[in-house]
């Protein structure tokens, strides 16, 4: 598919439909591909890559790309299109400056899972089959593709693109339902005692180094100036000085993206400390679904988000305590 994508991108550059291409550039370790702009067919030929290590969601880059002259071609995986739609809805990007090629996806790989399986000193990874074939300085290793999937791919939203100009390697309405129930882990945590939940989150969140990777990678966190970088709420903090701040940061961040988060999983993917941040967002999604009706952010560009909407019969906040009693 990589070749097909590259050729189509070249065509679109040559016929001047677009002036630049936003895609992924081959990394030097076989798995560390980076988001990149390509201005010429030559650059594409040299560096363009598309494989299971192209996890980065390119939607957010379109905020900056959209400000430039001319159209940008962007490759979006099915789940990236939700983020793109959400950004469109919030007027953060311009559709008319974008040419979207929806690309097929068989799931993205988590290099940390590969390393956690004891595969070290990686020289190259062959991810074409059901088994990963990894060349390392310690010899050749193998592991099943499935077992190295990113957390977000384990609860895949499906393979259908929500927005695109054309599709390559993907069908119009592809079904590839979630492999697991994405709320299982949330339910599990909910069923713990408050003490256990507190202990779990304390141990997870205490790892936070406030590097802001989660925020900066998050397509929903598109504020020009985050409240944690400004003093609008006396909230400007650069680093953790107290455990409270880790909680504060993550609660408010999750709250600010509640109803807007598409569950793209970038936060957990990029966290250098492996904090399962998606479990915070999914908690909000689960609550919203059960209390206010199923809602998938990014599915459309015109519905009212749950927090800018209401019904007369909404649940009372006391429901939290009632649920707790059960």
């Amino acid at each position, binding site marked *: 598919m990589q070749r097909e994508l590259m050729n189509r991108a070249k065509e679109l550059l040559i016929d001047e439909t677009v002036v630049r291409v936003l895609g992924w550039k081959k990394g030097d370790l076989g798995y560390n591909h980076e988001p990149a702009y390509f201005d010429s067919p030559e650059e594409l030929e040299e560096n363009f890559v598309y494989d299971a290590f192209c996890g980065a969601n390119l939607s957010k880059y379109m905020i900056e790309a959209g400000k430039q002259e001319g159209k940008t071609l962007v490759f979006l995986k099915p789940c990236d299109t939700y983020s793109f739609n959400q950004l469109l809805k*919030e007027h953060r990007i311009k559709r008319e400056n974008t040419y979207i090629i929806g690309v097929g996806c068989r799931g993205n790989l988590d290099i940390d899972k590969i390393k956690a399986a004891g595969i070290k000193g990686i020289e190259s990874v062959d991810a074409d089959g059901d088994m990963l074939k990894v060349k390392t300085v310690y010899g050749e290793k193998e592991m099943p593709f499935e077992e190295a999937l990113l957390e977000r791919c384990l609860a895949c939203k499906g393979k259908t693109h929500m927005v695109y100009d054309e599709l390559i390697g993907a069908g119009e309405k592809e079904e590839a339902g979630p492999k697991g129930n994405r709320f299982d882990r949330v339910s599990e945590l909910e069923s713990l005692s408050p003490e256990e939940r507190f202990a779990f989150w304390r141990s997870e969140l205490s790892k936070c180094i406030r590097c802001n990777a989660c925020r900066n990678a998050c397509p929903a966190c*598109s504020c020009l100036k985050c409240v944690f970088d*400004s003093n*609008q709420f006396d909230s400007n903090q650069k680093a953790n000085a107290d455990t409270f701040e880790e909680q504060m940061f993550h609660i408010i961040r999750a709250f600010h993206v509640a109803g807007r988060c598409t569950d793209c999983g970038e936060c957990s993917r990029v966290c250098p400390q492996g904090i399962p941040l998606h479990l915070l967002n999914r908690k909000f999604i689960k609550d919203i679904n059960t209390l206010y009706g199923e809602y998938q952010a990014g599915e459309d560009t015109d519905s009212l*988000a749950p927090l800018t909407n209401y019904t*007369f019969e909404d649940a009372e906040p006391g429901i939290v305590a009632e649920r707790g009693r059960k």
Partner: protein
Amino acid sequence: MEVNQVQRIGVFVCHCGTNIAATVDIKRVLEAAAKEPGVVHAEDYQYMCSEAGQQKVREAIKEKQLTGVVVCSCSPRMHENTFRGAAQKAGLNPYMVEIANIREHVSWIHKNIEEGTEKAIILTRAAIAKVMLNAPLQAGQSKVVKRALVIGGGIAGIQTALDIADAGYEVDIVEKTPSIGGRMSQLDKTFPTLDCSACILTPKMVDAAAHEKITIYTYSEVEKVSGFVGDFQVDIRKKARSVDMSKCTGCGVCQEKCPSKKIPNEFNRELDNRAAIYTPFAQAIPNVPVIDRENCIKFKTGKCGVCSKVCLAGAVDYEQQDEIVSQNYGAIVVATGFDTIKLDKYEEYSYQSCPDVITSLELERIMNAAGPTKGHLERLSDGKAPKSMVFIQCVGSRCADERGKSYCSKICCMYTAKHAMLIRDKYPDVDVTVFYIDVRTPGKNFDEFYRRAVEEYGVHYIKGQVGKVAEHNGRLLVQGADLIDNRRILMETDMVVLATAIEPNPDVRKIATMLTASIDTNNFLTESHAKLRPVESPTAGIFLSGVCQGPKDIPETVAQAGAAAIKVVGLLAKDYLVTNPCVAKSDELYCNGCSACEKVCPYGAISYEDREVNDHGIREVRRVASVNSALCQGCGACTVACPSGAMDLQGFSNRQILAEVDAICR
């Protein structure tokens, strides 16, 4: 811009006689306040709100050059304005005053002096912390356009328009149908005095049409509303009448000659037919017909053109187009009135299947000399005069299910008494029976009126809702139960009249959305306060007249119409409106353009525009929010919807509230 200066705060502690002083140690509060950074003056007084107390505040402001004032006293709901006024008199911006509520929230509920004093000190500190961050606010001004719009040309709209116009202001009436007059023009007589409806309404219609300050747009609808109190911009669509208003003489020949005469006549509740070119009724204003293009042969087939040929004035104009009138208004009155509910879900009353089962409004038309039967009471099935009639009350009113309405329609008891009385008067041989649940007659001379129907006119009132009406041997069989005698009633009758529930005009939803005025679950427009602001919508500059706000009879409607008018006049009499300065404000440097604020604003006060901003040297065009301070009421919903904190509320800013939180948790 105000130069940021060091705040000089004065604290004034009120004893309120012994109301506060009995359970709060005033001296300790004073001492504690005086130690707070920024406080340069602290004093107490028996009654701070008295003239002498206010004098102390004014003097201290001048002598100590205070930049902020904290008054520790009763609830701000009581005297905040008093002390703001005092500050203003002394040259201090009134919004530099904060109140610490140490009476209602402290001395009156805490009996322990230790506890009370401690809490009073904390609340005082919180108020000091807040006032330190207060900024002088200037109440803004916005121009008032001296013209009002009335939506709906029924009795409510006409009366409102007349009252506003009589006060000297321009008023436009927009009426959807070809004539003003509304529901009242369809009525025969009115309770409780039995005057002829047309006799009392027509003069008002004529007055309105003749009034130099009133412009009437009939066959027109409001298309678009923007702007805000004092200056609404409204687009009115004048639908093509196909008849030139300036040429038509109202002779009526066109209507007589029109070959397409089989169109259900809306004015007569579709009990008879009208022509494709028509005026709804004889006294219509304007007395100019319209062509119903959907049913006109000329418009349907291109052939015909009879009306044009017979019109001596040459007024018929098939080429006429809809016209958009754009006008600015200072105030808008909604007077969209009501209709009766559909009865398709009440099969048991056989309304759909038996022509002799009619609604009360249909009876009005039947009784009316200009109605489908020329005023003769007769059965619509066979034209025979009835010998017996049954009235059924509360059809669709006071209903708990989705078939009807939960509310009491309010007018039915009285008009039914009126109908019964009129029938018994004109046709003494007709037996009249009324099935009722309760007879509700609150109103001047109302119960007397109902009693006359029973005592003088011999109308039978039976307590008990009717269970079923069915056709039976060419008559109607009414099955009921007399709840008082506990006896079954099975009676044959000739006509059944249903007191059908009324509901707001269905168009009101669309209009309310345009006006950002709220409506309740029954589609009645919500008033700003059920008791104290009954003719104002919560949306500033929008007023309510007539049944659009809730069921009303004519006297009530006229009274409310006058009330709405005086509120409008009160608004239009001002050249400028002073706006509440405690409104939201967006910082363009922090704004992301996401529209979250816009979506939660109940007043449509937030709009977005592409504007060039200078973000510390980076100049770029960004989509940013701006708040119309004339529309904003200062609820703060937007401030929380805004993730970046760009939106803040003046007078209750994020920092101010956080400072209070900090002070309380110290």
